[in-house]
């Protein structure tokens, strides 16, 4: 246990003694602030919209139609809930969050996690591969510590780093939002059982970030595996980022085929379950979790055996 913590401290030190890490974090924060600024700026460009009561009742009509049309039970319930919430707003005079306000902005800001994923992928692909590039792998592995342990320490450090970046993204989004956007604009409502209750923006936003973090863990582990296998920094970063951007698109390309149900990127976006129609028919959150766990186990096993069994001849 003590040994593991020493190893993790080593890896953490090697990440944070490099200037490039700070540059990545600075870029990440800059991107989040830019997002906040652009949100407030584009909101100001929009002309005065209609009063919220009108908007909500329009929305309600749409939901009612959709509820009537939908054949699938889950979908019907979802739209019925939305109708109920809209009605509740009108009856009790509870405005929804404004498009221009802090609440909606903070929920939308979860898309910034993409930057955090990108930068974590860079670190994850390099954490093993760089040791080979630098030649330090020789001095690292001739120690009274099993190679497997060194690898696991690196993996945990990568996860810790991805969590750190996710937190930085979240905190920067809050700070950016407070700087650029107006606050106190309406209330989020949700159904709990049969009751309509107020939902805190903090809990809702954390939930969205949390779901995005699942994607982050998978991408990080994938990059980690590629880095361990290829022992080349550039290849690992390139391949991981390429898949990050094309992987999701391929889901639509593959949707005709049966294997799409077992394709990694069908499952990485958990926010698809917040609405009734997931990307592919016939998948459920539990199924997705199972598939992702299987992928994760394969990634880690491949990394482990590649790292512990292969000769080091750099």
């Amino acid at each position: 246990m003590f040994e593991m913590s020493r190893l993790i401290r080593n890896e953490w030190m090697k990440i944070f003694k490099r200037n490039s890490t700070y540059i990545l974090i600075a870029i990440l924060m800059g991107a989040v602030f830019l997002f906040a600024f652009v949100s407030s700026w584009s909101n100001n460009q929009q002309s005065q919209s209609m009063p919220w009561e009108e908007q909500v009742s329009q929305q309600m009509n749409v939901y009612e139609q959709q509820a009537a049309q939908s054949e699938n039970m889950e979908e019907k319930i979802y739209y019925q809930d939305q109708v109920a919430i809209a009605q509740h707003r009108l009856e009790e005079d509870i405005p929804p969050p404004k498009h221009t306000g802090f609440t909606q902005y903070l929920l939308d800001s979860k898309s910034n996690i993409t930057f955090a994923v990108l930068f974590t992928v860079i670190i994850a692909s390099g954490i093993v591969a760089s040791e080979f590039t630098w030649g330090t792998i020789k001095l690292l592995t001739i120690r009274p510590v099993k190679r497997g342990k060194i690898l696991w320490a690196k993996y945990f450090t990568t996860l810790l780093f991805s969590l750190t970046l996710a937190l930085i993204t979240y905190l920067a989004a809050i700070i950016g939002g407070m700087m650029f956007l107006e606050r106190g604009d309406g209330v989020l409502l949700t159904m709990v059982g049969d009751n309509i209750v107020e939902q805190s923006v903090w809990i809702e936003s954390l939930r969205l970030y949390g779901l995005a973090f699942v994607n982050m863990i998978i991408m990080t582990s994938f990059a980690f595996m590629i880095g361990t296998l290829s022992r080349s920094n550039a290849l690992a970063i390139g391949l991981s980022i390429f898949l990050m951007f094309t992987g999701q698109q391929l889901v639509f390309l593959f949707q005709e085929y049966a294997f799409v149900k077992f394709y990694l990127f069908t499952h990485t976006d958990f926010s698809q379950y917040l609405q009734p129609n997931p990307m592919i028919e016939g998948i459920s959150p539990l199924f997705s979790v199972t598939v992702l766990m299987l992928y994760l186990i394969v990634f880690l096993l491949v990394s482990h055996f590649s790292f512990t069994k292969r000769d080091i001849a750099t």
Partner: protein
Amino acid sequence: MNEQPVVQLKNLTKKIGSKTIIDDLSLDLYPGQVTGFLGPNGAGKTTTIRMMVGLMKATSGEVIIDGYHLNKNYTKSISQVGAIVENPEMYKFMSGYQNLVHFARLQGNISKERIKEVVKQVGLESRIHDKVQAYSLGMRQRLGLAQAILHKPKFLILDEPTNGLDPAGIREFRMYLRKIAAEDGVSVLVSSHLLSEIELMCDRIAIIQQGKLISIRSVQGSDQDKRKVFLFKVSDKEKAWQIVKDNDEDIEVEIMDDRLMINLEKEQAAQINRTFIENGIDVYEIIPHKKTLEEEFLEMTGGEQIV
């Protein structure tokens, strides 16, 4: 040597594909002994060293360090090894001190005091908090040595350790190796292509060629030969040559530049000198010519390039 060897290599073989890189190599290394490891380019020095520290797995054969099998009891056996494998590559973006802290954490229980002590031993006190980026090759070698001796190993492997050191540094390094071998009983394996360096530093030399160990012998051994080549510098080479031949048909004698090269026993050399003088030939110099390690090495390995 009646002591137990610290390191035993038993019938070590490494095959990559159908190619045999190391072929049935056996070698024992004893405490307090500095062994030089020589071989031409591609003979398998680095592969052997990599197998000794577990970076590569042997196809067959065993590495036993301090009584533990490297394969079966990796952490126990490797804990007694300190090594520089090829260049001492460090984390350039960290200071020398941070690098040592890093390796100390990997070794386990190493105190701050011990790190300081080692830094002093290798003479890096004034620059230890600078980034390794700014180090010269010699300073990196010193830092490499520091990380290798941090945990006071019983067995030290040094690959090209004097590369980049200045003459004073090399001397200092040699003294240090001799000291830890003599005082702490550390067994040292040094691979180098500087043969004169090896000659000064080592008690014993192991020569490897095409994956096979072709010779192990002690450095002092070459002095024991009874017959030697003597170089005579004389006033009249031709006449001197004739005298030697008249004296004894079988003596090997050769004119080389302005000298005579004669293969003799010690007593004969004095005899011949007297004969020269009696025949009116002036003798300016008599030099017993000792074969250098380099010559021997080239003879043994058939003149292949050494690195």
